[in-house]
Each structure stands twice: as structure tokens, then as C-alpha cells.
């Protein structure tokens, strides 16, 4: 057998294999191909998330929170209302109300400053000078399932604020515990 016939044979096999692949691919219905595209997306998502410094867990964090970059989890702790009240009484923390302005105006934790998270882009340029990086900031919003404070915490971490805590169950927990508010200053004292 000559070298030429060998190469022709190899070429024929390659062509056969290619046409087989083509035939198989052509027979794959759209659904299977769509599933294959989803498979590619899963692989790319896994790689991208592993490489992204702002990558997140695939499931909720152990405390149930979602959307927290892995790098931020320990730097954005949640505190319960009793701990928050201790900080309030000692004056060791500045309270930040992430709720909408109308709700803040209605009532809030005395001394808290309002940075409505839903209007962050508009309000932050003016508010940044009122928020010291050296003090512990306790962020609170409405209550269960409200992630506004956590979102605000993420923004603040990116801006170099390191002393942060989020009040678990926020304003709802504070009110239910009967702690003082601007309109009810003597409660809980």
C-alpha cells in the first residue's frame, strides 16, 4: 500500500466521521440543541462566578441571605434588635435608615439618618459627607424579606466603609420590641 493510498483512506475516514457527526447533529431536534446551549451556559456561569471577585454562592448564605458576594459575607453581619438597642443606648453606632423618605418622615429611630436605598444614585452624592467611615453604621429597613439595607451595605463596602451591621428584621423588629422612636421617645428606656 502506498503512502498516497494511505492518506486517501485517512481522508475518506475523516470525511465519513464528519458526515456522521453532521448527520447526528442534523437529527438533534431543537429541544435537545437548546438543552445543549443551556449546558454550555451552566459551564460558563460556573467558571465566570468562580473567577468573579464579586461572585456569589449558588445557594443562599447560611443565614438565608441572597445576593451577597462571598467576599462580603463576614463583613456585613446581621445583628438582632437587642444588640442594636445596646449600641443605640451606648451611642457607639450611627443608625442609617434605608427606607423611603416618606416612611422615615413618618417615624424612625431617633438620631438615624435617612439614605433611601431606592433612590441611592440621586441621594448618595449629597449624603456621603454625612457618613463617617470611622463609626459603626447600623443599617435598617422595613423588615422581613426587605433587602434594602443589605444592598446599601454592599454599596458602602465597595466605597470603603468597613464598620457595618444590618439590623435583622429592621424597623419592624424595633417597633415590636417597643424601643424608642422619634414619635415615642420614652419607650423601652
Amino acid at each position, binding site marked *: 500500500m502506498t503512502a498516497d493510498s494511505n492518506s486517501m483512506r485517512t481522508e475518506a475516514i475523516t470525511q465519513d466521521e464528519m458526515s456522521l457527526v453532521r448527520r447526528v447533529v442534523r437529527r438533534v431536534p431543537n429541544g435537545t*440543541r437548546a438543552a445543549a446551549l443551556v449546558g454550555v451556559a451552566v459551564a460558563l456561569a460556573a467558571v465566570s462566578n468562580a473567577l468573579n471577585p464579586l461572585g456569589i454562592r449558588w445557594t443562599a448564605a447560611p443565614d438565608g441571605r441572597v445576593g451577597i458576594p462571598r467576599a462580603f459575607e463576614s463583613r456585613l453581619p446581621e445583628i438582632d434588635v437587642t444588640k442594636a438597642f445596646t449600641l443605640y443606648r451606648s451611642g457607639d453606632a450611627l443608625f442609617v435608615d434605608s427606607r423611603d423618605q416618606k416612611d422615615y418622615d413618618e417615624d424612625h429611630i431617633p438620631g438615624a439618618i435617612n439614605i433611601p436605598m431606592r433612590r441611592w444614585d*440621586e441621594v448618595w452624592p449629597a449624603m456621603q459627607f454625612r457618613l463617617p467611615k470611622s463609626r459603626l453604621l447600623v443599617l435598617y429597613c422595613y423588615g422581613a424579606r426587605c433587602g434594602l439595607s443589605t444592598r446599601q451595605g454592599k454599596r458602602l463596602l465597595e466605597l470603603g466603609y468597613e464598620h457595618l451591621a444590618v439590623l435583622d428584621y429592621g424597623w419592624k423588629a424595633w417597633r415590636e420590641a417597643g424601643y424608642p422612636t422619634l414619635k415615642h421617645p420614652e419607650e423601652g428606656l
Partner: protein
Amino acid sequence: MCAIRRATARAIALRVIGIALGATFVYASLDKIARPDRFADIVNDYQMLPALFVNAFALLMPWVEMVTGAALVLGVWRRAAGLLAAALTVAFMVAIAQARLRGLDIECGCFDVSSTSSTKASWSLFARDAVLLAASVLVWRRA
């Protein structure tokens, strides 16, 4: 001759629709891929998924958008990509509709997940998605 011209014009039109649709999907995926944490917040706002699945959805869905869009732009497996685009768009429409019906005042998370002054989930976005759905079905069934 006329039939050939018609077929060519139809093929070109479908190709252009596919490219435009694909480019839209690719563009829509970029900010979400860069900021999965912020997209997860928006997914959470829609209140459709249990907390356990929110992160996984926020990580995966933008890459499905990206792969679908890239396939449509490159003209690879266009019908399968059209099918995926249609499925995604139906999911977006369901999400927007349920948010509006429940009175949720939330950001759309359609293209931009980093700004807090971006578009809200609204009926006009639902209508825009209906146009995307029509284009997706066209590519899926006719390409």
C-alpha cells in the same frame, strides 16, 4: 426567479431579525454577568423564587441569555437559540405581569442592574417583551 428572490429576501430578513435579537440578548446579559449579586437582589424583588434558588437563577439566567444571543448573532443553531429566546421572553413576561398585578414597585433588571434609577417593571416593558417574543418565535419556527 421571483420565488427565488422572495426566498432570499425572507432568509436575509430572518438573519437580520436573528442578529438584532441576539445582540439584544448579549447586551442584556453583560451587566448581570458582571454583577450577579445585584441581579440576585432584583430576582429576589420579583418574589417568585424561594431564597434557596435565587442565587442560582441569578448566576445561570444571564449566561443563558449570553449563549442564546451569541448563537443568534453567529447564526449557529439558530432555531434552538430562537426556542430558548422565546422561553426566556415568556419567563420575563410572566415575571413582569405578576409583579404588576401584585403591585410590586421594583426595578426591571432587564439591561441594567447597577443603577437605582433604571427602568421599573411595567406594562410597557411587557409590550416590548411581546415584540421580542414574536421575533424569537419567528426565528425558531421559520429560520
